[in-house]
């Protein structure tokens, strides 16, 4: 039986901008990968919009994984901008392990931002036959 899960999240761009100003790299380094930060360069406002959408994607992914206490680290969920301008989702470390255990092997992502809010929708599809072992070799490439 095919298992389809959806995660959605809404993040305030103003809140992200305020955090960028208040905490700077201490904030960004805890939440975002080097690639995400590279993909989100620009003015403060543009960075805040881009990073808010990426934070929403991480939250949406955690919702699709349906984890609570075992939630992965923020940087183990990575949004990558591809040359065509779209974004793809890549799971690393514990996030990849959780996805594998749940049998979720296809992930799709949509981001948007307008005015003060950024949103992300994540769809995960799998066989529904998760595994119980701790094979972390899959880093989500091709997801």
């Amino acid at each position: 039986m095919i298992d389809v899960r959806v995660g959605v999240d809404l993040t305030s761009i103003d809140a992200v901008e305020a955090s960028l100003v208040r905490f700077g790299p201490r904030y960004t380094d805890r939440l975002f990968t080097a690639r995400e930060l590279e993909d989100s360069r620009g003015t403060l406002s543009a960075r805040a919009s881009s990073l808010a959408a990426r934070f929403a994607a991480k939250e949406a992914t955690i919702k699709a994984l349906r984890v609570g206490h075992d939630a992965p680290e923020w940087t183990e969920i990575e949004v990558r901008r591809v040359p065509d301008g779209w974004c793809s989702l890549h799971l690393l470390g514990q996030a990849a392990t959780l996805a594998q255990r749940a049998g979720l092997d296809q992930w799709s992502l949509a981001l948007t931002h307008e005015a003060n809010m950024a949103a992300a929708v994540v769809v995960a599809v799998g066989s529904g036959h998760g595994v119980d072992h701790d094979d972390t070799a899959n880093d989500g490439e091709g997801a």
Partner: protein
Amino acid sequence: MDDIIRKVLSEHGKLTVDTATIGVDDDLYRSGLTSHATVNVMLGLEDEFDLEFPNRLLRKTTFQSIRSISEALTEIGATADA
């Protein structure tokens, strides 16, 4: 220590209630704490107590209540007179 936690929650938690009215075991997420605000609360606590939260404590349960935050701070060496 609880007073400092309440101060940080007031500054960074974006709660929907006055932190003075929150009990030490009350669920902060039910009081409006979001995942994003949790990060700011953590960084604010690091500033107040001059320490760094290890990634293993960046969990939802760590910030579930004032008591759980206090216990996490004690675990990583914070003192009440920070």
